[in-house]
Every structure is written in C-alpha cells, then in structure tokens.
C-alpha cells in the first residue's frame, strides 16, 4: 500500500435541500455595469475573461448602467414588459387549466421570461430561433395569436399541429420559431445547419439556438459548437442556465468546475455570461452576438444565467428537492419586477398603468381560452383521425393507406 490517501468518488450535492435555508453564496456574480464590452468584431482571444464575469445592466435601483446598456426606447421597454407579463399570465392560466383536467401537460417559463422576449424583439423577422420549451416569450413578443397556443395545448380540432404534438411543443415558422421536441438538445445542431445554409445561400438571416445547462452534457452541445466554430456559422448558441435539470442542480452538469459560458473557450468562440433576468443585459448581449454573426465573424456562446422559479413541468414538485422558498432568494431578482422598476425609475411607467396592463392581458387570455374551450379541451375535440396518418411522409405509402382503412377512417 502506498502512503497516498485512498481514492474518493466525488458526487456533487447542492448547498441547500428542503428544510435548509436557501444559499446562493457560491455563485459568481458581477456588479451591474462592471463588465467591459469589447467590439463585436474583436478576436476571441482578447475576451477570454468574459465567460467568468456576468454581464448586467440593471442595478438594484432599476437604473441602466455600464457599457452594455442598449439604450432602448421607452416604447420598446414597454413592449418587452407587456410580452413578459403576457407570458407569465398565460402560463398561470394554463397551469390552472391543467389542474382542472383540460389538458395533459404544461411547462411554465416563470422567472425566465426576459430571455425569449428580449431575444425575439432584438432579432429580425428573417432570423430563426431553435427554442427550448421555456421560450413562450419569443412567440408572445411577436404577437403569435393566443388562440393558436390554446388550441395546440388542448390538441383540439383547430390545433395548428393537428393533434400530433404534446402541449407547448409548438412550431411557428412564420414567427421564427422552429419545431420543438421533447428530446432536449437535439435541435442545437439544427440551428448551426440553418445558419450554415443561410451563409451558403448568401442570405442575411441568422439562427439562434437554445439548450439547457443540464443538456450541455449531451454530445449535441459539443457537436454544435464544433460545427459552429469550424464553419464560422452565423449563429448565436445559448445555454439557458436556470440552475435545474428537473431535480438535478447545475453542479451535476459541471457547474462546480467552471461556467457554461467558458465552454466556448475550447472552441475558440466568444463566451458571454449574462444575467438572464435582466431584460437589458439579454438584449445587449444578443445584439452584440448578432452583429458578430452578421458580419461573418461567426458564432457566440451565451450563457443566460437565470433561475427556474416554477417546477420543471406539471408533473414535478420542486419542494421535494429544493427549499420551498428558494426562488424568493434568487439574488438576481425577478425579470418582470426588474423591468417594471426600471420603467418606473425612468418615469415611463407607474403602478396604475401596470395594474391596467395586467387586467387587460388577463382579459385577452381569458377570451382566447374561452374561444379554445368552445372548440374543445383535450378529449372533447380533436382533429380528424385521418390526420394521424398524414405527414409521416410527404405522400403516404401503402402501409399508411392500408392502416388508415383498417382503423376505418
């Protein structure tokens, strides 16, 4: 036997479990306005500090500070606030409808609304997003009709996806929203392929792909980064680090050792680590990466540092694995509250207008749900069963035709 201590297997455990006091002391955070903003065309080698910082614009008083302030107009800020609130109110309503048995499944974006909304507004109509299932804000920001969402969630006769897909796994090509799937990570490389195609054709659209911090452990993540780097694809690759993969804290995905943004360094790509609950910071980082992509300087990896304030899905109870009050202690606050506070600090918003907006959106959502319920909730209504056999191939082959007849539809 040697004199060395025996080997020990390390299993990461989070700082707090149910019953413990929430603790975020271990997080690497920067002060608002403290991180430098290099030129978007600067060589990657000159920005290897950025993945370890945290780009923030909004300070504790709701002021926009520092070089990343995108200096948005009050109208655009109000538009963002509106879409974020719409997302949150819609989520609430749908979660309750699930509890009433009107659909089979739902997932909320609670606490992450700034990401989809800011990026949707910051990017252009010809750009394509390859979303995760917490990007409803993207569609809300582009005024995707609520009734389409409701019908898809009810899988009813008017479902735009014709009853073929689980609730919330939307597809909306005209709104720059690629088909979602329940397999996490498998569209990350599609974003790169889309961007390569745009470059191949000499077009002007770019792609933005999303993956959760948990899913960065999949090969898809590394494959996409490799291809994005090799071919200098005009793509923004985002890791939405909401701290949880169902019940597993981010340490299980490697967060104890480094940041997710820092994974970019090995691929020679810029890595930005951004406060995902800060509408302005998300916007600013996105525009920076978009500018880099549009000028043929290639891809950027952005870690959007946020917190999943709700459970993973309607099938999850987060109080079983984390302190029940942990969300309230998240040091980067709530994205809706922070943008509201900023608008109020600018003198461009007040509580009265906010309450009126909430009332208006609540009513709009209520009306859309009512309209969807009139078509039918899950099980009350569905597209023609013939539809089940359509779209497997462009034209059904004899198997599908025979099986459709066998079912008698």
């Amino acid at each position: 036997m040697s004199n060395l201590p025996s080997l020990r297997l390390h299993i990461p455990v989070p700082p707090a479990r149910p019953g413990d006091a929430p603790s975020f002391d271990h997080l690497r955070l920067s002060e608002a306005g403290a991180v430098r903003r290099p030129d978007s065309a600067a060589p990657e080698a000159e920005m290897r500090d950025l993945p370890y910082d945290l780009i923030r614009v909004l300070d504790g008083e709701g002021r926009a500070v520092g070089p990343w302030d995108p200096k948005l107009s009050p109208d655009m800020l109000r538009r963002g606030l509106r879409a974020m609130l719409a997302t949150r109110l819609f989520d609430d309503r749908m979660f309750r409808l699930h509890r009433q048995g009107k659909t089979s499944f739902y997932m909320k974006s609670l606490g992450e609304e700034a990401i989809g909304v800011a990026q949707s507004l910051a990017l252009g109509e010809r750009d394509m997003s390859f979303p995760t299932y917490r990007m409803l804000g993207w569609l809300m920001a582009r005024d995707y009709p609520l009734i389409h969402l409701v019908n898809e969630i009810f899988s009813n006769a008017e479902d735009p996806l014709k009853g073929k897909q689980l609730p919330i796994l939307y597809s909306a090509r005209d709104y720059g929203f690629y088909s979602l799937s329940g397999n996490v990570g498998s569209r990350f490389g599609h974003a790169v392929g889309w961007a390569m195609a745009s470059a191949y054709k000499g077009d002007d659209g770019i792609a933005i792909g999303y993956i959760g911090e948990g899913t960065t452990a999949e090969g898809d993540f590394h494959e996409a980064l490799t291809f994005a780097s090799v071919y200098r694809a005009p793509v923004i690759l985002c890791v939405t680090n909401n701290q949880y993969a169902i019940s597993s804290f981010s340490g299980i995905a490697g967060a104890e050792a480094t940041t997710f943004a820092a994974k970019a360094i090995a691929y020679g790509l810029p890595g930005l680590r951004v406060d995902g609950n800060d509408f302005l910071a998300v916007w600013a980082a996105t525009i920076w990466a978009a500018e880099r992509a549009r000028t043929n300087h290639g891809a950027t990896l952005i870690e959007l540092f946020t917190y999943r304030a709700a459970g993973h899905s309607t099938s999850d109870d987060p109080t079983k694995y984390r302190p029940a009050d942990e969300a309230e202690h998240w040091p980067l606050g709530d994205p809706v509250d922070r943008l509201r506070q900023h608008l109020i600090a600018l003198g461009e918003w007040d509580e009265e207008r906010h309450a009126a907006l909430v009332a208006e959106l609540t009513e709009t959502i209520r009306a859309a749900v009512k309209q969807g319920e009139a078509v039918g909730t899950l099980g009350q209504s569905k597209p023609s069963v013939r539809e089940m056999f359509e779209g497997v191939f462009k034209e059904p082959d004899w198997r599908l035709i025979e099986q459709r007849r066998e079912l008698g539809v």
Partner: protein
Amino acid sequence: MAQMNMIQALNSALDVMLANDPNVLIFGEDVGYFGGVFRVTDGLQKKHGLTRCFDAPISEGGIIATAIGMGAYGLRPVPEIQFADYILPAYDQLVSEAARLRYRSGGEFSAPITVRSPYGGGIFGGQTHSQSPEAVFAHITGLKTVIPSNPYDAKGLLIASIECDDPVIFLEPKRLYNGPFDGRHDRQLRTWAGHAAGEVPEGHYTVPLGKAATVREGKDVTVIAYGTMVHVALGAIEESGIDAELIDLRSIVPLDIDAIVASVERTGRCVIVHEASRFGGFGGELSALVQERCFYRLKSPIERVAGWDTPYPHAFEWDYFVGPARIAAALNRAMEA
C-alpha cells in the same frame, strides 16, 4: 451511355445534381478535396466549388444535425457517413428529428436529406466496416431506405432520393462498387465492364423509389433480395437449375409489396436473402408480409437466409457471409417441402 462502375455512377449522380440544383450540397468525412475514402465524391469539389462539397469533422451526429437544419432551411444536403457501421452516433438525429420533423411540425418543416453510406460485408472489414443496419432504419417510420445493386440503379435511385422531399437513407453495397460479386470469392472477380447495368447514361434520369426490379423471371420459387445478395442469389439460382424468380427490392422503404405478392402468388414458394443477421432482420418483416398476403398460395415454408446472429467476424468472413451454398440449400428446402 458510358461504361461505369458503381462508384462512377454515384459520382455522376452527384455531379448531375450539383449542376442542376444550387440547393444540393455534399459534406462528410474526407469527401472534399480528397474525394472520399471510396472516391465517390472524387473531383466534385474541384468542379463545383468549395462550398458545394466539403469535409466535415468526425462527428456523425453533428453531420446529420447540421444537414437537418440545412434541409429545414430549404437546401437538399447529401451528407456522407463514411461507413454505415459509424452511423449510430447519428441515430438519434435520424430517428427523433429527421424522421419526425414534418409530422410533428404540422408540415411547417421537413428534412429532405439523403444520407449516403457504404454498407455490407465481403471485404474483410471486420466488425466495424461490414455491417448491414438497414432494419434499424426500416423500422423507423418517416425514413426511406434505398439499397441499389448495380451502377445504373445506383445513379437513378440516388438522383430520385435527392429529389425526394423525405429523408432517405441510401445504403451503398460496397462489395458491389467495383463489380457484381456473386459470393464466389475464390474465383476470378468480375468488374462491371460488359455488364448490362454497367451501361449508365451520363445525364439526369431517375429510378423510382418503391419499385422493385425482376432480375430473373422464373416459375418455381420467388427469391427476394437487395444489395450484394442480388448477385449472390443470382449465381446460386443459375447453378441450382431451379427456375427461380429473383426480385431486387431496390428500396425496402417504400417497399414494392405488389411485386412481391404477384410473384409469390405465381410461384407459391419464397426465399428471402439478406446479409444482415437474421433475428429481427428485415427478412422477418418480409416473411410476415408474404405469410399474411400469400398464405393460401404457399406450397412450402418461407425460407430466410441471413447473416448469423453474431457480430461480424474477421477471420470467419466467408463462414459468416451469406454465400451461394447457403442460398442453394434454402432453394432446395423450399422446393422439396
């Protein structure tokens, strides 16, 4: 018409499509400047340009994922997977994404990609250069699986695959690249020179997917095969003296069920031949279909001749590989019963 082997015919198909359609592009491991380990993309980069035919990282999952993204954009990528044995890292992309994209998006997005990959044995390639994975694709609805058996079909089927709006797995029997191998590895090998199917038009033409070819007409027994086994079966039939009808499926999805049923109804006997291992192989599906549709016309049990249920072994190449003797034995069993 020109005399071509299968490599040249495939190269010609890609050349024609690169010239015809600016949305066609090729990428894969070693396919660019070098022209591919089997030379199928030889000269295409030089002729059509760097962005039309280029090298990819050793990342089958990444190759197929990016191809799907390109396909969704509106391109018609033709990625190459260097050996079908290496396609499994891309299996999730093919099954969960390419095969389902049209369906799950309500038709908003689709993946019109053609994945070329050399497959099959008889080349002393051992476990990792010899496998026949067609059944794992045939089982996945939403994918088409095409397997040519000669230069003429290879070119026409490849063009049809690239023009197809659905994802296609295009498996190239590498043992047939240079000649119509009949399994007699101990005899003088033939090339495609002088073979009727080695006469290949230089321009654009298609061979439709889902249409089998009757390689040999006969009245006693129907032999169903594809890829290299078409030639092995043909050799075995000719030596046996049995008047067998030989059907080359050319694509297993879509499957030409009408050709199979029409033939078996005439002959009343059926022998199914494939290189892949037997259990769970595509022959099981063929056997079930024939039984379901032709049971009362069958005069003898359906025979399956297939690779053994072992990994593909190196030293035992010719003990594993389905050769003429095993096919002849199956033909005799079918006739004697």
